[in-house]
C-alpha cells in the first residue's frame, strides 16, 4: 500500500510577477549581488552581448552560487569569451556532437534498457539516486569514451559534485573531483600512444589537440573536463527525475508518445522548457549599462534566468501548460548564443531515448514519497527538481 502523493508534476513559474512588472529580479549570493534578467528577449540579447556581459571573468564568478571560493581552474570554453572561445569550441563541437551517431545511440539504448529493467524489477526506488544518477554516470562514459566501469566511481560521489548535506558549496567535495581529473589526465598522458580514433577518450583527444596552433596546457584540459563533469550532472539528473515525475501524473501523455512516436522530439523539448533544469547562469558586467531601464554597474553581476524566460507570456502561449503540440518552442533551457550548452546534444539524446523507452515499456508510475529541491533565490522560491523521488514502476 503506497500513499498517493500529488502535485509532483507541477513546476510553478516563480518569476511571473517580477517579470511582468519590472523585468528584473534581485538576489544576493555570498555578498556579490545579482540582477536577474527575466524576459526571454532580454535574456537572449544579454546572452549574445558577450562584450558587455562577460563569461571570462574570475573563474567561478558567473556560476550561481558563485564557485570563486572553491575553484581556481577556468572552465573551458564556458568561462572564455570570443575571440579565444571560438578555437576551443571548434575543437570540442565535433566530439560533443557524437551522440548523433547511430553507434553512440545503440550503446546509450543498452544503458537505458538496463536502467529501466532494474527499476521495473524493484518494488520501489529513489529515482534521483538509483535511476537518474546511474543513468547520467553511465551515459557520461559514452560522452568521454571511457570504460563503463568508471561510472561506479562517479555514482559513489553522490548526486552533487560540489554540494554536501550541510553546504551548497563544499570545497572538500569539489576537491575529490579536481584530484580525480588531475589523476586521469596524468594517466592518459603516460598512456598516450597512437591509436584508432574510435578508441581515443576525451582526455587523449585533448592531450593531442591544438587550439590556435598551441597545445592545450594541463590546466586547460582540466578546465574542459571539470565543465564536462559538473555541467552535465545536476542538470541531467534534474531533467531525468522531473520527466519521471511529470509522467507519473500524466500517463496519458506517455501513452500518446507510444502511439505517436513522431511527437517524441517535440515532447522532450517541451518538457525541457517546462522544467528548465538549470535555473540561471551569471555574467559579469564590463561597463556601466542598463537592462530593462535598470542601471547596472560595471563589475557587478547579472543572471540570464533561463527558467523565467521559458515562461515568458509574451513569447509562449499558455506558458505554464505542458503542450506536446507546441511546434515552435524557442526555449533557452540550453542557454543561447556563443555559450549555448556544449552537452546539449548528449542531454537531448538521453531524454529522447529515455522517454520513448518509458513509453514502450512502462504502464504506470506511482509516487511513494517526494522531497522537492527548492532553490531560494532572493525573494524567489523555485522548484528545480527533487532531493528524493521514490516511485514504483509497473511494466506494460
Amino acid at each position, binding site marked *: 500500500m503506497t500513499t498517493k502523493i500529488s502535485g509532483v508534476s507541477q513546476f510553478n513559474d516563480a518569476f511571473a510577477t517580477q517579470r511582468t512588472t519590472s523585468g528584473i529580479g534581485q538576489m544576493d549570493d555570498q555578498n556579490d549581488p545579482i540582477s536577474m534578467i527575466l524576459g526571454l528577449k532580454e535574456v537572449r540579447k544579454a546572452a549574445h552581448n558577450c562584450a558587455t556581459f562577460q563569461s571570462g571573468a574570475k573563474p567561478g564568478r558567473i556560476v550561481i552560487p558563485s564557485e570563486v571560493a572553491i575553484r581556481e581552474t577556468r572552465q573551458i570554453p564556458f568561462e572564455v569569451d570570443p575571440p579565444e572561445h571560438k578555437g576551443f569550441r571548434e575543437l570540442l563541437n565535433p566530439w560533443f556532437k557524437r551522440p548523433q551517431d547511430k553507434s553512440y545511440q545503440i550503446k546509450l539504448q543498452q544503458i537505458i534498457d538496463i536502467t529501466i529493467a532494474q527499476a521495473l524489477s524493484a518494488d520501489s526506488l529513489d529515482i534521483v539516486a538509483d535511476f537518474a544518477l546511474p543513468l547520467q554516470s553511465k551515459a557520461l562514459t559514452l560522452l568521454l569514451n571511457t570504460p563503463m566501469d568508471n561510472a561506479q566511481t562517479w555514482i559513489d560521489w553522490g548526486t552533487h559534485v560540489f554540494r554536501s548535506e550541510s553546504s551548497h558549496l563544499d570545497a572538500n567535495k569539489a576537491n575529490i573531483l579536481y584530484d580525480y581529473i588531475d589523476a586521469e589526465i596524468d594517466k592518459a598522458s603516460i598512456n598516450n600512444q597512437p591509436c584508432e580514433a574510435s578508441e581515443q577518450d576525451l582526455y587523449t583527444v585533448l592531450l593531442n589537440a591544438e587550439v590556435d596552433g598551441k597545445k592545450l596546457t594541463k590546466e586547460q584540459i582540466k578546465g574542459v573536463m571539470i565543465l564536462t563533469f559538473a555541467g552535465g550532472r545536476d542538470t541531467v539528473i534534474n531533467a531525468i527525475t522531473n520527466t519521471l515525475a511529470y509522467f507519473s501524473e500524466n500517463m496519458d501523455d506517455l501513452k500518446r508518445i507510444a502511439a505517436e512516436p513522431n511527437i517524441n522530439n517535440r515532447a522532450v523539448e517541451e518538457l525541457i522548457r517546462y522544467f528548465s533544469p538549470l535555473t540561471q547562469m551569471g555574467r559579469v558586467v564590463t561597463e556601466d549599462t542598463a537592462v530593462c531601464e535598470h542601471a547596472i554597474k560595471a563589475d557587478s553581476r547579472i543572471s540570464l534566468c533561463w527558467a523565467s524566460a521559458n515562461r515568458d507570456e509574451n513569447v509562449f502561449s499558455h506558458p505554464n501548460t505542458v503542450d506536446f503540440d507546441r511546434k515552435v518552442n*524557442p526555449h*533557452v533551457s540550453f542557454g543561447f548564443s556563443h555559450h549555448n550548452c556544449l552537452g546539449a546534444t548528449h542531454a537531448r539524446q538521453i531524454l529522447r531515448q529515455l522517454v520513448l523507452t518509458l513509453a514502450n515499456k512502462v504502464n504506470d508510475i506511482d509516487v511513494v514519497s517526494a522531497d522537492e529541491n527548492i532553490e531560494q533565490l532572493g525573494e524567489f522560491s523555485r522548484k528545480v527538481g527533487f532531493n528524493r523521488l521514490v516511485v514504483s514502476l509497473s511494466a506494460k
Partner: protein
Amino acid sequence: MAKVIFVTQNNGSMEVEGDSGSLMELAVANGVAGIDGDCGGVCSCATCHIYVEPADFEKIGQPEEIESDMLQLDDNVREFSRLCCQIEVSEVIDGMTFVVAN
C-alpha cells in the same frame, strides 16, 4: 517531389530530394554539413541557418517573429537568412539552391 541543392561552407554541393517534412529534416537525413537541427525543428537552437537566393526569397517568404528574433542575434545573419526547420519541403522550393551559413 522537390529537388534542392545545398552549398556548404567548405564549398561542397549536394543535391537532395524529398516530398515531406521540413527542409532541416531533409538536410539532416542527407548529412548536409553545417545543418545540425539539434532541437529537432522547434526553432530553439538556430543550428539550421541557411541563405536563400534573393530571387527565391519572396516565394519562400519572410520568417515569423520568433524565427526572426533568433536570426537577429546570429553572427552570420544576412538579408536572406532563414532557419530551414521553418521551411516545408514542397513544390514551392523545387529547384532552389541554399547556402549553409555555418
